[in-house]
């Protein structure tokens, strides 16, 4: 169910602008990897290259390779749609589909792809996904109500349920807690701990305590200045990055001297 990601010499562009330069790293399966760094350093851009969401933006493209258990996502004839079915994503702002009920939102990945689910199969998948996202108890009596009627934290967990219902190999999370209050954040963090038993998780966060709490490995990104591309400065176990980083910039960032 979970796969190793290997990234070799990756550059990301928005048209002529090079946003991320020369990133190579390995992301371990069944673990949580956190990306930290100041705003605009390319963390989110880089994350979006891992399921080919980067190229959705007009003019954006990627050089280099991303290997999912050895298979290059950017190889010729690779269908981005099938990549995204294996690498799920949760966004910064909760974005449930406003025209759908809670139930339809969770099953959206199947419904929108026109995959038929038997009634019993759909029900068990629905319950499993919502339990997986720690939301089942709160919504089990109103599955036919619209998803947009939930609170922000519940909506974000609904989006997580929607992503894990597809049973992806990897789950990408782009600042999933930045729009949430501390209690909902805690719920999502607990969930991340549970999910890493089954999935490879990559999370972008601005909150260093959060990175320290939830992640096994941490990657620090930085930019040399405005207009310069973001680079991977240092990557290692979270413990090492937060206690004895090799690079001075990392230490400065973590101790709050900049950023």
């Amino acid at each position, binding site marked *: 169910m979970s796969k190793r990601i290997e990234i070799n010499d990756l550059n990301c562009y928005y048209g002529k602008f090079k946003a991320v330069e020369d990133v190579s790293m390995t992301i371990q399966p069944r673990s949580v990897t956190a990306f930290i760094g100041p705003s605009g350093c390319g963390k989110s851009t880089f994350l979006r290259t891992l*399921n080919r969401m980067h190229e959705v933006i007009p003019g954006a493209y990627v050089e280099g390779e991303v290997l999912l258990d050895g298979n290059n996502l950017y190889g010729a004839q690779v269908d981005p749609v099938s*990549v995204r079915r294996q690498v799920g994503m949760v966004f910064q702002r909760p*974005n449930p589909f406003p025209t759908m009920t809670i139930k339809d939102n969770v099953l959206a990945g199947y419904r929108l792809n026109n995959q038929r689910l038997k009634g019993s199969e759909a029900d068990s998948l629905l319950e499993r996904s919502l339990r997986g996202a720690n939301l089942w108890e709160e919504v089990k009596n109103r599955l036919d109500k619209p998803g947009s009627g939930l609170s922000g934290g519940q909506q974000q967990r609904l989006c997580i349920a929607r992503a894990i219902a597809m049973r992806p190999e990897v789950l990408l999370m782009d600042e999933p807690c930045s729009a949430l209050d501390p209690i909902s954040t805690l719920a999502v963090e607990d969930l991340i701990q549970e999910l890493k038993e089954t999935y490879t998780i990559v999370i972008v966060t601005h909150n260093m305590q959060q990175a320290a709490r939830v992640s096994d490995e941490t990657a620090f990104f930085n930019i040399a200045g405005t207009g310069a591309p973001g680079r991977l400065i240092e990557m290692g176990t979270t413990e090492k990055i937060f206690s004895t980083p090799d690079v001075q910039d990392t230490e400065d960032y973590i101790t709050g001297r900049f950023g």
Partner: protein
Amino acid sequence: MTTLTTRTNPLTAGQLPRFTLVATMAGCLIAGGVIDSIALAPFDLGTTVFLGLVLFLPVMYILSRGVEGRRAAANRTATHLITGAFLLTLLPLVSLLWETLSNGVERFDVQFFTSSMRNVIGEGGGAVHAIYGTLIVTGIATIVSVPIGLMCAIYLVEYGRGALARSITFFVDVMTGIPSIVAGLFAYALMAILFGPGTINGLAGSIALSVLMIPIVVRATEELLKVVPNELREASYALGVPKWRTIIAVVLPTALSGIVSGVILAIARIIGETAPLMIAAGFTNSVNTNPTANPMMTLPVFVYDQYAHPGIDRSFYNERAWTGALTLILIVMALNLLGRLIAKRFAPKTGR
């Protein structure tokens, strides 16, 4: 006015009593009436109201400036100007509705909706042929325009990049501005080329109306598709949904209620077109439900015909024209109501 014993709240300002507004208005109207009858005699109600209102603005400003201060006075003047503009806009609309209703109700009877003008000279007769014609011609125009307009808007918003999309947008803008009579001539010329000169029928009318309707549908739908949040598209892509399914299953349903009202407004806009139908669909006094042969009467053309070519005893023809206009307004109103109902039905669900 300064008392040394009581502390005054520095946040307060003077306030005019509530009746000032009505009293000033009445005073100004009376003053207007006096000026009107003495200086501009004879007395005329319209001139009086105009003078009164022109007088009212500065009088109220000076009063308010003296008591309430500069900001409050400016606020009042702006409020009065805006309210005035609103009433001014409403005036012709209300007057039009009232005139049509009061004149149209005369012949708003069963006969009007059951008989045509076949062999009718003078009294009696009805507009059933024109009602059928309007419904058929507008219906065909809608069936043709909505899919074309919708798909064009989807192309522009979801796929179109570069010169082609820009030029389509430009030509759609140009098309919204073409005079409707040109659309009628276009349809007439097209039918003449395809089926021989002088081919006048309901289909030609529909083609003319489609030319007018497509750009309206494109414009309305384009704006609505643009406001569908990109996050929803990304959420769908991230679930491994292909782009075309995302458009059909996520983007369109989210914008559907707005699209439906846009289409209804477009229909309301073209259902009253007269000039292109006079050229392309022609005139007739008989019921014709076949859009591919012979002229077809429509309500706007019926109204024009009754008014412009009356027979002996003009009043019968004028009454029929008014009732035809009333029927047209009622159809447009019914369409608007229907649109609102549908829009409500499809609106993105909220609530807990």
